């Protein structure tokens, strides 16, 4: 009992004002530099896609970019809420499913409007085997950044928070990678990008209970 009295004294003495948006600021502080590192690594190691000029005119390039960016934003928003002990994932799974569904429709439209000879290129492209690994690699800086943020947070559901934070990092890594990747197949993105993102999500779910414990 006396211990607790002493501890309360210590805590009161240690009290410092907390800025209103302290948690949001920590997210920005952990994520923006991490994303910058990831982008710089991509530019330094791989470089922008060789046909960048033409690609900027292609809807498929922007759909690919939007797919990853949207998943990253939705997952990040959920992670921000889950970082609070009384927070919930909100509509994360519904919104994520809606984004994937929209991508599936884009993929179906592209397949239907293409000759069957093009299917191989649209589905497997020329980089299906290493695409998920590169996404994983470019997601790692962001994963480290988001973990740094969450370790000062107070998530109540460690596995779920780890999973969704991993999805956010994976999608951010995929978005970075999409500036290099020359694939224009929507089915390719739907399958191989999603695999890369999910692998980072799995990493988060596996490490969450230990890494995020407080």
């Amino acid at each position: 009992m006396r211990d607790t009295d002493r501890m309360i004294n210590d805590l009161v003495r240690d009290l410092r004002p907390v800025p209103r948006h302290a948690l949001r600021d920590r997210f920005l502080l952990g994520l923006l530099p991490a994303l910058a590192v990831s982008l710089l690594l991509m530019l330094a190691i791989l470089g922008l896609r060789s046909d960048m000029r033409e690609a900027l005119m292609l809807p498929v390039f922007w759909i690919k970019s939007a797919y990853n960016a949207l998943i990253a934003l939705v997952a990040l928003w959920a992670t921000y809420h889950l970082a609070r002990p009384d927070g919930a994932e909100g509509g994360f799974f519904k919104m994520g499913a809606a984004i994937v569904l929209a991508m599936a429709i884009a993929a179906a439209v592209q397949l239907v409007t293409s000759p069957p000879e093009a299917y191989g290129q649209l589905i497997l492209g020329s980089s299906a085997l290493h695409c998920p690994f590169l996404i994983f690699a470019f997601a790692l800086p962001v994963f480290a950044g988001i973990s740094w943020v969450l370790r000062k947070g107070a998530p109540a559901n460690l596995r779920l928070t780890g999973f969704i934070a991993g999805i956010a990092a994976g999608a951010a890594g995929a978005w970075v990678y999409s500036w290099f990747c020359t694939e224009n197949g929507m089915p390719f993105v739907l399958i191989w990008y999603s695999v890369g993102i999910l692998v980072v999500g799995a990493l988060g779910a596996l490490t969450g209970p230990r890494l995020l414990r407080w």
Partner: protein
Amino acid sequence: MTIAHSEDVLKALMLLSLDGDEAAYRRLLTTLRVLLVGYYTRRMGAATKADMEDLVQETLLSLHSRRTTYDRDRPFTAWFFSIARYKLIDHHRGRGGRRLAETELGEELESGFSEEALTARLDVERLLDGLTPRQQELIRQVKLEGQSISDTADRVGQSESAVKVSIHRTLKALGERMRGGS
């Protein structure tokens, strides 16, 4: 337990604490400490006193180190008892009693340790503040903790009928006060 522990009061103290008000923070921590003892006592059957004190300390410490995660626009008690609940699960998990913790929590969720339930409880506490300590004790033991009349009578050293009469009168008085108050 003679302070009114309403959500409003606790939240006001928390907001002051976040701005660096030491006196408010001390009041907040001392009040929450009492609430935590009640919270953990109700949930840890075979716990030793030392375990309980550890948990109370850990929870207060977490409130301190994680206070940036409190959203000023949301209820304080919901946030705070989420920390308490997390610490309780973590405590059971640490002793390999994971399954036990999950069962207990499952039941707890069923019975709804929700924000409303807590607010209702806080309202009850505030209502009890107006009673004499003896009346408070009886109501607390029999009506809130659900202990039997005979056990309570033994503990307070009164006859069963005296306890019954006393509770009956107290409830009647409370009823009148509520009608008058609202």
